[in-house]
């Protein structure tokens, strides 16, 4: 039973970990002199 709970915890952890990551999501630049 405990092993099952632990397995579930690991699965949820793997799913949620990337979501909680800090990161630069997007960069936008306004540029001049582009042809």
């Amino acid at each position, binding site marked *: 039973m405990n092993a099952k709970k632990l397995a579930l915890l690991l699965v949820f952890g793997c799913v949620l970990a*990337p979501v*909680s*990551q*800090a*990161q*630069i*999501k*997007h*960069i*936008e*630049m*306004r*540029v*001049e*002199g*582009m*042809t």
Partner: protein
Amino acid sequence: MKQHLGRQSGVQTVEVSLIDGKVDVTPKEDGRIDPVQLLKATYDSGVSVAEMDMTARGKIVKDASGNLALQIEPNQSFAMTPNNLSSGLESLAGSATMVTVRGQLYKKSREKKKPEASVPLKLLILEVQKKE
């Protein structure tokens, strides 16, 4: 320029709009992207950057001088230019709360033609999108 930027570390896609003079850079999901390098790479490709905005998720910390900063990674953080929005984030300094913000990292000044690579970019918060 698109290829030049696309070769930078951590870059997933680069979208260029010739009409608007806009360049959108999407980082890789797990990649680390360096805005200073992007700025430099853009100049190296012969284009002048007027403004650079960033959307990022991270923690609010205080640096050694007590200034607020957005920490993305232990070795990557951006000091904030104080404004009303950054003041509202002060209470979160040092907490585990993650914030998603949009801010201006660079704006071309009238005098300077090329940004100094040695000068760290400061983040002027334009919008706080999420606190969690």
